């Protein structure tokens, strides 16, 4: 505002921002576009620092805690070989006010891929005798590749009841659910629980044989 005020030759406290322009509140014809005002800043960013007093910002409605989300997985299980194929995953995620939708969605896609990886593949194998990690490589420390992740869909919750909760966080929440969602889908498909992650073919076969045969 100070910058725009200087350019318009008026006092900063007489200005308001509205409808894409910065103008004088009582004389709207004295104005400049938001874009021009931003361009006039040049390469120097605007920085504002503040202090988050615990409890205070929540009271003021600036932030809130706790996020909600739901995930659904659809899988195919080859009951003769125990191989699980992930067909599709849907994630619905809340994280309060979303500042940048694309990067928020991208964070959830990443979480799904990471989740599929730990649910189906990822495992550090150590030799009990030597203590040596046996699969410290990309061959047998398996990560999900493009052919393993299936179709992924992400829906971020926005609007009333979400935006007004303020900025929360999105790092871990969506990576918690895939294990449960995928394991539930496998149990639903074969009629028996595979009790340990990752859901490797040998574990799926063992669970099936304990159940007494194929689904």
């Amino acid at each position: 505002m100070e910058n725009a005020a200087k350019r318009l030759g008026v006092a900063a406290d007489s200005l308001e921002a509205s409808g894409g322009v910065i103008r004088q509140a009582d004389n709207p014809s004295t104005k400049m576009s938001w874009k021009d005002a931003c361009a006039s800043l040049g390469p120097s960013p605007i920085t504002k620092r503040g202090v988050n007093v615990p409890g205070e910002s929540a009271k003021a409605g600036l932030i809130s805690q706790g996020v909600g989300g739901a995930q659904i997985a659809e899988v195919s299980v080859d009951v003769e070989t125990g191989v699980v194929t992930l067909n599709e995953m849907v994630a619905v995620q809340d994280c309060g006010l979303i500042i940048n939708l694309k990067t928020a969605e991208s964070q959830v896609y990443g979480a799904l891929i990471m989740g599929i990886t730990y649910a189906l593949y990822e495992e550090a194998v150590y030799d009990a005798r030597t203590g040596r990690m046996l699969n410290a490589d990309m061959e047998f420390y398996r990560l999900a590749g493009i052919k393993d992740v299936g179709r992924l869909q992400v829906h971020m919750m926005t609007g009333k009841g979400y935006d007004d909760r303020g900025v929360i966080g999105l790092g871990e929440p969506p990576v918690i659910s895939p294990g449960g969602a995928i394991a539930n889908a496998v149990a639903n498909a074969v009629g028996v629980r595979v009790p340990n992650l990752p859901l490797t073919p040998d574990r799926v076969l063992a669970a099936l044989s304990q159940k007494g045969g194929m689904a």
Partner: protein
Amino acid sequence: MKSFEYAAPRSLKEAVALLSDTWGRTEVLAGGTDLVTSLKQGITQPNRVVSLRNLRELKGIRPKRGGISIGATTTLADFVSDGEIKKNFPSLLTAAQDIGSPQILHTGTVGGDLCQRPRCWYFRNGYGLLGREGDTSLVREGDNRYHAIFGNEGPALFVNPSSLAPALIALGAEFTLTGPGGKTRTLPAGEFFRTPKSETERETALKPNEILTEIFLPNKGLKNATYEVRHRHGLDWPYVSASVAFTMKAGTVSDARVVLGHVAPVPWAAARAGGALNNAELNDTLAAKCGDAAAEGARPLGGNAYKDQMVKVAVKRAVLAAAAA
């Protein structure tokens, strides 16, 4: 990595002459997808690496009486795009395509696939080909989920890693090896692979100063197919693979051969499974019976009993795929 001398000779005779008659002193380089890894892992520390890149005569697929001749340094990508392979050998096509990574297909070679060292994680972590520490077999005592269920009576418990070998053996291929002075010898594919009894032995019939130069693949009009059980859908090593080849006349099978991959220190010829198919009418029941016969006599190590079931399924599915082709 230890420094080594690099040689890229212009003739096969010269290449063979550059090889030592003692294992480990020299190594042969084709695509390098295995050798370079092995050098980095320190499981081989040669004084000299002999590259086959300038030996044009080792590259390419040509017609030869009764079949085709495949040069050992033909890339896997050229192999899978060859018209003859595509038309008559779906078994090999599946095996090669399932390697899965375009980078490896374009760099790796047919000969390299056959000569690569085992992927046993004890071997790759520096415990030797047999994976031992003193008198203890780390494989037997440790995590052997990817190890042998057949041919594991001796100290070698790794599995042969080749994708193409089971299919080539089932199809009756022959390998030509070239040694000092350009002298050649030819072996049935199945006799190329050996189970070492000590650390100083290797997994193939190659002598240290021999090079695998040619694979002859006869075209006998056999029905053939390969089925691999793999964990991931992209690049991954199979848990188990099965290659089958047989003659089928009026729905009845003869000359059946079933060869398994990733279950033994060598590609494993499941003779009983082949026998189960012969002189019988091919249907789902027979295919399942053949699978069961293939798994007979398996001796799991403790962590790999699940492979029995995978053998049954892989064989059954390969048989049905071959019949449908």
